[in-house]
Each structure stands twice: as structure tokens, then as C-alpha cells.
């Protein structure tokens, strides 16, 4: 693998870059093999930054016994038998009644909170809990209220990582926060997809929408790599691509919203993209057309993602409210902050990869 194609970080910053760099290079080369190799493990482990060690120690294994309990919470009737069932039936009918008569509210972006909570989340939850067995770390880094911008890596050919991140925030966050994702324009061109995306609270990734949501005090999720990240070949897995033009930083600066870096491990392997049928993609108007070991050879069956084990880690928030108002116009600051976020995500990715026992367990 091309060892020289390392992500160019800015080296002139003092954020402990020197120690991290050799390790990162190794990680880029063989992230998967590295996780089984004790030699590499020993080498990489001392690198993590001060705060993250603490976080991991607290959450890593402690999270697992909690997980089977969590899903029970949104379904209170499951335990109470008779009375509980009745209540559930009544609630279900009330829901049905509101739905059939159109008596429910959506916000300006078309976010249908009721539908998302009652129906769409219950559809996604089995995938989240049973299929990808998502482990969430650092959920306490998401503030309980006020606007915040979650910036995550993007991978997996289909944007399942965004949806899983949304379920993670929805189910794990103690303050019941809802993540509002910013999606590519392609999402809003496709029929059905656009309808569901709007109802799930997603909106177009543009500065206007992001700013409006942050100003309303919403939690906004963005994946600045975009198609470059999600459609990258399998060989480049866990190598962060360019972070757009850093527009997310100036948006956060303008609203004074903290940036929360988020690293998602496991999504890269769900559809190992070994090829890209560019002609077909151009014909269909898609940015890429993935060829995986199973798709499209096995037809619809090949479109079933591999059941990888996921970890979603929310990092320490990077505050943006200490900057003067004109900071959003300062390209140098914007690049620095973009790099800082990117580096932190990449850093955490490697750390999680090293800790991972295997791709599937």
C-alpha cells in the first residue's frame, strides 16, 4: 500500500504532532492487520492525547452491559403486561388517529419529530443494536442544550453512518437530543429518499440551513468529506479525505457553536468498495457506482451490508465562542480549526482501530 500518501497534516502546530505521526503512518498502511498485531498495539498506545485516555478508560467496556437495558426504555409496556399493553394500544391508536387526520406538526425543515421517534427510529434501531452492535463513547461530550456542530468522518458507500450516528444521539443522549444531519443535494433529488430524509430532520448541507438550525439551538451533524469520503475505495479506508472547504468551521464560528469531532469505526467495511463503475455512475447521475465483492454480482442480496461491529466516539468539544465576530472571515483561522478537527478525528480513528479486536466482533 502506498505509504507515502499520508494525509498531510499541518506539522507546524505544537499539538503533540511529532509523536503521533509515525504511528499514524502505520495505521494508514494496514489498519485492519494492525489491530491484531500486539507489537503495533504497544507502539501506538502511548500516543493518545491527554483527555481521550480518560474517556476511553471510563467508557470502553462499561458501556456494554448497559446496552441491552437501554432499548427497553422507550418501550415501557414490555414489562407491565396487561395494563402496559392496553396503554400501548391506546397510544398506538392515538398515534394512528393523529396520523390519519394529518393532525401533527412538522418544523420549517419538514422534520416530523413524532414520525421519527415512533416509526423511523424503531426501524433503524434493530440495525443499530443487533446488526452493527454500535458502541457509543463520549456521549457526554454533546452538550445537553444549545447548538453544537458534530463533525464526523464519512464512509461506507451508503450513508448508513449518518443514520447510525443519529440513532446513537437519539437513544444514548440523556437529554433526548435530536441530531439534524446535513445531507448532500443528491439525497434531495432522489424520490422517496428526500421525503424520508426531510422527515428524519435532515436538510441540505448549505451554510444557510446549518446556520439557521444552529441558531435555533439544534444539534447539527455534518460529514465534511462528502462523496470523497463515502465513495473512497476500500484500500483507503480510515484515511480522512479533504474536509470540503471548511465551510462548517465558519458556520460554527458565526453561531459560536462548539464543534464536536466524531469518529465512526466500522462503517468503512460494510461495503468494501473494490471498484467504481464510473461510466455507469455518470449514466445514472451518481457520484460513484460501487462494485463490492458481492454487489452487483449477487443482485439485491449483494446490497446487504456486512455485519461489522461499530464504534462511534464523540470527542471533546472544540469551543468557537471565544473568537471575535470577524473570525469567521479569517481564512487562516478557518484552515487551522478545520485541520484541528480533522486531525482529532483521524487520531481517534487510529486509536479506536488499534483497540478493535476484529472487524466483526
Amino acid at each position, binding site marked *: 500500500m502506498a505509504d507515502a500518501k499520508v494525509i498531510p497534516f499541518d506539522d507546524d502546530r505544537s499539538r503533540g504532532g511529532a509523536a503521533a505521526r509515525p504511528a499514524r503512518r502505520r495505521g494508514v498502511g494496514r489498519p485492519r492487520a494492525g489491530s491484531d498485531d500486539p507489537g503495533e498495539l504497544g507502539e501506538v498506545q502511548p500516543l493518545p492525547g491527554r483527555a481521550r485516555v480518560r474517556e476511553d478508560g471510563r467508557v470502553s467496556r462499561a458501556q456494554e452491559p448497559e446496552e441491552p437495558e437501554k432499548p427497553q426504555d422507550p418501550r415501557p409496556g414490555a414489562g407491565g403486561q396487561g395494563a402496559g*399493553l392496553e396503554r400501548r394500544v391506546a397510544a*398506538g*391508536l392515538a398515534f*394512528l388517529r393523529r396520523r390519519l*387526520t*394529518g393532525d401533527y406538526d412538522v418544523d420549517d425543515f*419538514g422534520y416530523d419529530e413524532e414520525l421519527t421517534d415512533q416509526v423511523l427510529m424503531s426501524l433503524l434501531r434493530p440495525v443499530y443494536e443487533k446488526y452493527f452492535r454500535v458502541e457509543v463513547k463520549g456521549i457526554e461530550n454533546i452538550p445537553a442544550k444549545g447548538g453544537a456542530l458534530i463533525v464526523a468522518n464519512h464512509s461506507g458507500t451508503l450513508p448508513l453512518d449518518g443514520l447510525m450516528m443519529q440513532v446513537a444521539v437519539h437513544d444514548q443522549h440523556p437529554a433526548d437530543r435530536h441530531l439534524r444531519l446535513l445531507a448532500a443535494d443528491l439525497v434531495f433529488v432522489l424520490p422517496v429518499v428526500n421525503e424520508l430524509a426531510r422527515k428524519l430532520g435532515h*436538510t441540505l448541507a448549505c451554510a444557510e440551513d446549518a446556520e439557521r438550525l444552529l441558531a435555533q439551538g439544534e444539534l447539527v451533524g455534518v460529514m465534511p468529506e462528502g462523496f470523497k469520503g463515502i465513495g473512497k475505495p476500500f484500500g483507503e479506508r480510515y484515511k480522512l479525505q479533504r474536509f470540503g472547504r471548511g465551510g462548517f468551521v465558519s458556520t460554527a464560528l458565526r453561531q459560536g457553536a462548539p464543534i464536536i469531532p466524531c469518529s465512526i469505526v466500522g462503517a468503512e467495511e460494510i461495503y468494501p468498495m473494490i471498484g467504481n463503475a464510473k461510466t455507469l455512475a455518470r449514466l445514472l447521475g451518481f457520484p460513484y457506482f460501487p462494485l463490492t465483492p458481492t454487489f452487483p454480482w449477487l443482485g439485491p442480496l449483494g446490497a446487504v451490508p456486512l455485519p461489522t461491529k461499530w464504534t462511534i466516539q464523540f470527542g471533546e468539544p472544540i469551543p468557537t465562542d471565544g473568537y471575535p465576530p470577524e473570525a469567521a472571515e479569517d481564512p487562516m483561522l478557518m484552515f487551522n480549526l478545520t485541520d484541528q478537527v480533522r486531525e482529532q478525528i483521524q487520531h481517534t480513528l487510529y486509536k479506536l482501530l488499534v483497540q478493535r479486536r476484529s472487524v466483526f466482533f
Partner: protein
Amino acid sequence: MLVTGVARQLGGRFVRRIQRDPEVDRVIAVDAVPPAHHLGGADFIRADIRLPTIARVLAETGADTVVHLDVTGTALGAGSRAMVKETNVIGTMQLLGACQKSPAVKRLVVKSSTNVYGSAPRDPAVFTETTSAKSLPSGGFAKDTVEVEGYVRGFARRRPDVAVCVLRFANILGPAADTPLASYFALPVLPTVFGYDPRLQFVHEDDVVEVLRIASHEPRRGTLNSGTFNIAGDGVLLLSQCSRRLGRPTVPLLLPAVTWAGSLVRTLGMTDFSPEQIRLLTHGRVVATGQMRETLGFTPRYTTAETFADFVRGQGPGLLPPEALAGAVDRIASLAAKGSGHLPPHGAN
């Protein structure tokens, strides 16, 4: 005060309302056809704003405020689309030319539409007054409004002493509304585009009259009524919600089929189901109304949902009245309460 487009319901209502204001001495109502409704005590002058006679009318009456309401999407009675466009664009040009010549004019109010933003999947979810459309409307009423606003901006540059107010109205609904969207909602079965659920915003006729009144008077203390303002009720309704509240079933059609059917219907001349209309019903459109509240100092009485409810009251019952559906669900609920324990058939609905 000179008001154009008074032969329409909205123009008539505005003329009747504005005469009750003490600031208004005399209202001159202008239209090419005599109105079917009465205009209170306003002087009706039959003049076609597409012709230079409008300049003479303006000069002779010495009006200081001009309210231009004759920017509409549909023809009144039997008129072709070409005539509507003429009235919208050429009429506006003539009227603005007349205003420019008349030193008495101090204030100009123009009725525009949020159609100027178009609707495209690449647009931001909420338009502000400064958002530029990603895809300019290609034709129809939307293009007219874009052109009208262009001429109005030119006029405002040439006559900086005139206070110009452009009001971009969202879809106007009400018991008596005669907009294309109202006629769409009057269909027994609503054709929709498969896989899209557009967000719609409405503004009530009463609010339209009220905001026109605010715009045509001197601004109240702390407000400013020259500029461009989005006018819409609070909140958003999805098309699926609208159809359920109306009690009219929807028929989802594939987008190409809808476009084709729309052009067929247009060719047959049955209704003006314009491409712009289809795009609105595909992608929807929502505008921000912060400027309307803060700068213009206007708070609509009706929200989008209330406007729609008022519109529904004026319509006949649909094929699937929401009350009947709610009643059916309630009956199941009471059954379930009696025979507690076994689940009622949810799917039966």
C-alpha cells in the same frame, strides 16, 4: 391612492378595506374589466394598465400612493396565459413608467410572490429575502414575478424619493381565494408526485389585505415599510398533511408522468397546471418571515395551519373526511378498551 387589479376578489377586498382608513382621502380603482363585486365608495376607472392611458389616469388623479396588485398567476375569466403575462410584465412596465413621470407618487406597493425563489432540490430549506434562487424559474407566473421585481428595482433606483415596497406572498389561501393552488386543492383526488412530500406555506387573505394596508401607509414608529418582504403564515404543512386535513385521497404519480399529464392538461386548456406549480408540489418552498415581523412590524393573524383550516371549511367534504377516519379509530379504541388484552387489527384501516 391608486389600486390596480381591483376586478379580483383580493383587489376588491383591499379597496373596500382601505377606504375605512382615515389617512385615505380617495381611492381610484383601476382594472381592464369592470369588477363583479362592489368597491365601496371607490372611483372605478376602466383602464388597461398595458396601455399608456394609465399614465394619463395617474397624472389626472394625482395619486400619491400606487398599489399594484395586478400581478397574478391566472387569467380572470377567459384569458390566455399570454394575456396574463402581458398584464403582469408589460402592465408593470407601463405603470412604473407612469409613476416615474408623476411627481406626486410618493409610495409604491407591489404584490409579488415567493415564486421568485423557484423550487429546486438544491435550494436551502428556508429562503430569506436575500437568498438568490439556485435555478431561476423558467417560465410561467414565476418568471413574470422575477421580471416584475426586476423592473421595480430599476424604478426604485431611478426614483429614490419613492418608497417602494415589494411584498412576496406565499400561497394565498382563504375561503374565497382563486389561486391555482386553491383550485388544485379543490380536485376530488389530489395527484401528487411519487416520493416527494413538499413543504407548503400559506398566507390568509385577511392577512394579505392587512399587510397591504400597512405597506401603503406611512410606516409606524420603529418600523420600515420600504424594501422586499416575505409574507407567510407561521409554520409549515406537508402536502400529505394537507390532503389528510382536506380528506382528499392522493394519487402518487411518477414525476415524468406528472409533467406529461400537466402539459397535456395545459394543451387541452382545462387548467393552468404550470410546470412551476408541479415544481412547487415536488420540492416545496418555505420562506423566512423574520423581516416581516421585525422590520415591517406585521404579525399575521393566521398561521399556515389555521389558514389551511379556514380554507378547508370553505371547501366541501372530501372522499375521506378526517372526522370519519378519526371516528373509526375511536371506535376501534373503545373496542380495544372493552376487550382489553387482544390487539385490535391495526392494519384494518
